[in-house]
C-alpha cells in the first residue's frame, strides 16, 4: 500500500513540465535494482555492525569505563568495524594488502570458485520453481552426483579429456537419477515432491556414508570414510594458473546458465515446462503431458544439482566424503529464489553467496569474529537484498514505476 501511494506521488503529472534530464537520470539510478542491492549491503553492514561491536572484546572492555574515557570506546568501535569490513572486502573482492597482483585478485577468484556449485544447483532449482516444483532435494542430488563423478574419477584410468568428460557426465547422471525418483513418484503417485526430496537428502547421505565404509570407496590402507583422489585426468583444469583455485567448472557453470536460459526462454520444452508450472490444467488442455513434464523437470534439476557436485570432487577438494555437499543444496534454494529463478539472476546471486562464503575465513582470522557472527551478517545481507521495499523504506528511496515482486 505504501508502494502504491509512492507510485502516484512519483508520477509526473500530465501537463507538468517535462522532468529535467539530470533529475531523471538521478531518479533512474535511485530506482535501479543495483542501487537497492548496494543499499541492502549498507543496511546489513549497519545492523551487522551492532553485533560486531557487541562481539568485540576491546569495545566491551573500553565500554566498561566509557564515562571516564569515551574516546577509547569510539576508537575501539571504529577499529572493530574497520577491521571487519576491510576483512570482508579483502576476503571476498580484492586483497589490497597483498604484495602481488595475483594476491590482490585472489579473493575474487575464490569468490567465483565458491559460486560455481551454487550456480549449477541454483539453475536446477530455478528451472524446477518455474515448472511449479519445489525441489528441496538439491542437497541429495548434489551428493549423488558427486559420488558418481568421484567414482568414475578415481576408479578408472582413462585418457585426459575423455576421463573428465565421463566424470562430469557421471555427476549429471547421479544427480539426475536422484531427481528422477521424486519426479516419477509425483507423476505416477502424486507424492508431494517436498517430502520426497527432503527424505531423499537423508537417504543419499546415509547411502554415501555406507558406500564410504566399503573398501571400493576407501583409500587403500585407510579405514577413514574418504575416497581416493580423483585422477588428474578427471580433474577440472585450473583456468587462471595453479596459484588460483578457479577451475573449468566455473566456465561450465556459465555455459549451463546460458543453456538454462535457452532452454526456458527459447526452446519448446522450456515453454512446456513454464506453462505446466504456471497453470497445469490449461497446459493439459493444450495437450501437454503434466507427468512427463514433472519427470523431465526433476531430471534436469537433478542433473544440474549433480553437476554442482562436480565442483568439489573434480575441482577443489578432489575426493569424496559424505560431507562434500556442505550446505550447498540449501544455499542454492536461496540463490535460486534470490535470482528470481532466472539464469542471470542466479549467477549474480551465486556470486554474492560465493563472496560471502569467501569472506568467512578472513573475517574469522583477520577480524577475529566468531563464525556465528559471520553467519548472522550473511543472513542479514540476503534478507535485505530480498526485500527491496524494506530497503527503499529505510533509505527513503522512491519505488520504481513498476514494482517487481519477488517471486519464484
Amino acid at each position, binding site marked *: 500500500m505504501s508502494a502504491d501511494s509512492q507510485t502516484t506521488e512519483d508520477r509526473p503529472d500530465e501537463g507538468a513540465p517535462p522532468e529535467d534530464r539530470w533529475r531523471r537520470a538521478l531518479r533512474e539510478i535511485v530506482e535501479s535494482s543495483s542501487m537497492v542491492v548496494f543499499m541492502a549491503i549498507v543496511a546489513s553492514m549497519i545492523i551487522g555492525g551492532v553485533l560486531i561491536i557487541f562481539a568485540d572484546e576491546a569495545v566491551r572492555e573500553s565500554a566498561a569505563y566509557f564515562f571516564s574515557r569515551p574516546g577509547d570506546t569510539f576508537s575501539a568501535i571504529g577499529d572493530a568495524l574497520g577491521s571487519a569490513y576491510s576483512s570482508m572486502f579483502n576476503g571476498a573482492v580484492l586483497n589490497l594488502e597483498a604484495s602481488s597482483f595475483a594476491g590482490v585478485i585472489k579473493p575474487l577468484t575464490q569468490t567465483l570458485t*565458491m559460486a560455481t556449485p551454487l550456480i549449477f544447483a541454483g539453475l536446477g532449482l530455478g528451472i524446477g520453481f518455474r515448472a511449479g516444483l519445489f525441489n528441496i532435494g538439491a542437497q541429495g542430488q548434489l551428493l549423488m552426483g558427486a559420488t558418481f563423478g568421484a567414482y568414475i574419477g578415481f576408479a578408472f584410468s582413462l585418457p585426459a579429456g575423455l576421463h573428465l568428460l565421463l566424470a562430469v557426465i557421471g555427476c549429471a547422471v547421479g544427480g539426475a537419477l536422484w531427481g528422477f525418483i521424486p519426479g516419477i513418484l509425483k507423476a505416477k503417485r502424486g507424492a508431494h515432491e517436498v517430502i520426497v526430496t527432503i527424505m531423499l537428502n537423508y537417504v543419499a547421505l546415509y547411502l554415501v556414508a555406507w558406500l564410504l565404509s566399503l573398501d571400493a570407496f576407501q583409500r587403500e590402507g585407510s579405514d577413514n570414510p574418504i575416497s581416493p583422489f580423483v585422477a588428474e585426468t578427471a580433474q577440472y583444469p585450473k583456468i587462471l594458473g595453479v596459484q588460483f583455485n578457479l577451475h573449468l567448472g566455473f566456465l561450465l557453470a556459465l555455459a549451463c546458465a546460458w543453456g538454462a536460459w535457452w532452454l526456458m526462454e527459447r526452446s519448446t520444452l522450456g515453454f512446456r515446462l513454464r506453462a505446466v508450472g504456471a497453470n497445469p490444467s490449461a497446459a493439459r488442455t493444450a495437450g501437454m503431458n503434466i507427468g512427463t513434464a514433472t519427470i523431465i523437470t526433476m531430471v534436469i534439476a537433478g542433473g544440474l544439482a549433480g553437476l554442482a557436485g562436480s565442483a568439489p570432487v573434480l575441482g577443489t*577438494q578432489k575426493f569424496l566424503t559424505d560431507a562434500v555437499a556442505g550446505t550447498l543444496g540449501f544455499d542454492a534454494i536461496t540463490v535460486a529464489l534470490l535470482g528470481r529463478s532466472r539464469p542471470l539472476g542466479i549467477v549474480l546471486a551465486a556470486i554474492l553467496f560465493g563472496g560471502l*562464503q569467501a569472506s*568467512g*575465513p578472513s573475517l574469522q582470522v583477520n577480524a577475529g569474529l566468531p*563464525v556465528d557472527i559471520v*553467519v548472522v551478517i550473511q543472513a542479514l545481507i540476503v534478507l535485505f537484498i530480498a526485500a527491496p521495499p524494506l530497503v527503499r523504506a529505510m533509505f527513503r528511496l522512491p519505488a520504481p514505476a513498476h514494482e517487481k515482486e519477488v517471486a519464484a
Partner: protein
Amino acid sequence: ASAPEEETSSSATADTGAPAETVDFKACMVSDSGGFDDQSFNQSGYEGLTRAESELGIEIASAESSTEADFGPNIEAQVAAGCDLIITVGFLLSQATVDAALANPDVHFAIIDDLADNDFDGEIDAPNIKPITFETDEASFLAGYAASSVTGGTISTFGGMNIPSVTIFMDGYLAGANYYNDTNSADVKVLGWDGTDGQFTGDFSDQAKGKNVTETFLDQGADIVMPVAGPVGLGAAAAVESAGDAWLIGVDSDWTLTTDYADIIFTSVLKNIGNSVFDTISETIDAGFSTEPYVGTLENEGVGVADFAEGTVSDAVLTELDTIKAGIIDGSISVDLS
C-alpha cells in the same frame, strides 16, 4: 571499572596471573565442521591453544569450518595472517593441510588425529607437518574392563557416526569387555558395537536422540553406557541421570569436570589433545619445530582413564587394571579385537 593505564600493550594480557611475557609467536587452529564447541576433539584442541595463549603469552587465531569447502580457505587465511604454527583438527583436513604445507614450506603445521599420509606410503606427505594421534583404544580397553567388572551383565556404547576416530573408542571398549569375560569366565554383553557395526545416532548434534538411544539400552538391561558422539553424549547423560541406577563413561575429557553430570560418571576415557597441542606449541617455541609424530598412549599419558566413581570398582579390579595397563604398555596384552 577503571580505565587501564595508557601504555598497556594492545594484546590481551593473561588473567591467570602467570607472568607471561609476550612471545613473538602466532599459533593458529582450524576446526573441522564440528566447530570448537563440539564437546570433543575440536574443543579439547582449542583449550590447548587458549592455554598456550595465556600461559606462554603467544598470539593466537582460530577459524571454524562450516563445511569442507572452508578447510582450504581457512588454512590459507591463517597462512596469510602470518601464523607460525597452524594446527588442524581431524582427518578430514588432512589433504588441505598437506596442500598448504607444500605451498608454504616455511610455515609449520600440525594435524590432530591424522598421520598426514594421504598416499599411504608410510611417510608424512610434507616436510613441515607434525601428526598428532592417539591410541585411544588402549584407554577404552581399561574402561571396558572396569565396566564389565561392575555391571549386572550388560554394558553398552554408541557412536555419532561409524568412522574410525569414533569406533576406535568402541573397539577398545569391546575388547576390554571380551578380555574381562575371558579372564573371569564371565558373560558380560556389549550392546551397540560388534566390532564392525552397531548403534549410531547419525550426527553429532541431536542430544535428544542420544537420550532416546540410551533409554533403549537401559530397557535392554544395560547399566553402563559410553557415548562417543560429542554433545549427543549429554543426552545420554540426561537419560542415565533420570534412570538413577546406571552409569555413564565420558570420552575425550574428564566429564566429572567438563559436564554437569559428575554424579553419574563412572569414568572417562581421556584423550589429552589439549596437552598435546600445548606441548607442541611450547616445544616449537623452545626447541624448534619437529615433525616427529606425537602418538598419545597409556605410556606417555596421552590417553588414559579418569578416576572411577567412588565405591564402584573393587580394589581387586583396580589392581588388575594396573596389571593390564602395564601389559598394554609392554605389549603383552593386545587391545585389538581378536
